């Protein structure tokens, strides 16, 4: 049990540093994030400390980061956990709510890059146009008022891009 926990910790811990740097890179300089065991000899009785430092910012606890900074840190953790327990697809509901335009673009580009590797499929709900304009395809959902139900429309963005080009 302890072995499996430490194995998970090591994989996730290594991946989170990688992903966080990638999600926060500005002019070649990314932020730093790492996980640390409060007590490596008794991992279950103690917590896991997660520290994330946006680029060019000094060390602070998670609860001192801004709303958007915490979202990016949380996303890095989700992707790192996925590295240890890979699933074939990811479904996300409005994870970009607290992100400014620059961070929305960074997260969308990261997701697009991972999707293009072909090993992970993404279905992401978003209200932000600078997020969804970077998707390969769109599923538009609208309300049919008379029937009082949801209806959908699917659009292939890649196909349209190819036709325009």
């Amino acid at each position: 049990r302890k072995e499996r926990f430490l194995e998970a910790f090591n994989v996730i811990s290594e991946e989170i540093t990688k992903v966080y740097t990638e999600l926060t890179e500005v002019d070649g300089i990314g932020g730093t994030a790492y996980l640390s065991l409060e007590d490596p000899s008794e991992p279950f009785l103690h917590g896991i400390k997660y520290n994330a430092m946006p680029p060019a910012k000094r060390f602070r606890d998670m609860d001192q980061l801004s709303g958007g900074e915490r979202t990016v840190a949380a996303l890095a953790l989700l992707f790192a956990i996925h590295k240890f327990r890979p699933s074939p697809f990811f479904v996300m509901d409005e994870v970009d709510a607290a992100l400014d335009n620059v961070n929305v673009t960074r997260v969308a580009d990261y997701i697009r890059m991972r999707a293009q590797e072909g090993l992970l499929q993404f279905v992401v709900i978003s209200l932000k146009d600078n997020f969804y304009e970077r998707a390969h395809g769109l599923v538009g959902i609208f309300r049919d008022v008379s029937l009082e139900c949801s209806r959908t429309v699917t659009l292939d963005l890649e196909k349209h891009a190819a036709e325009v080009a």
Partner: protein
Amino acid sequence: GRIKRLELQNFKSYGGKQIIGPFGDFTAVIGPNGAGKSNLMDAISFVVGLQSKELRGRQLKDLIFRSSNDTGDEERSASVTLVYENDGQETKFMRCISDKGIGEYRVSGRVVKAEVYHEQLKRFGILTKAHLGFLVFQGYVSELAGKSPMELTTLFEQVS
């Protein structure tokens, strides 16, 4: 593998039979407030076997489409079918709720027990019993950011 398409029937706000897809490698789901986007995520969560306490309905019957045009004698059943594609082959996973609120699971058209259904999903790497890290519900990201060190330990334990 990946999701090829979804077929919803009377699931939450999706009245009647609706086919949604095809899904590519990166699909964005868009639309106004209240349109039914989160309900679509609920449909995916439902069809991969999530237990009803984790879905946004109090009991299975709440997941069946209702409209104010209803007379009251409707006997609707609800279902979500996931058409999953792996190595060029399609597998259909279907989960239904009868009008009485009884659940049923089918793989490739054949009725199976819940354990078999979850086992089949597991073979494709879809582990709904272990850790739901691949289903990120509205609001989960800020919850994750706010976790205490001990809560993170608990999370890592569930994952491993």
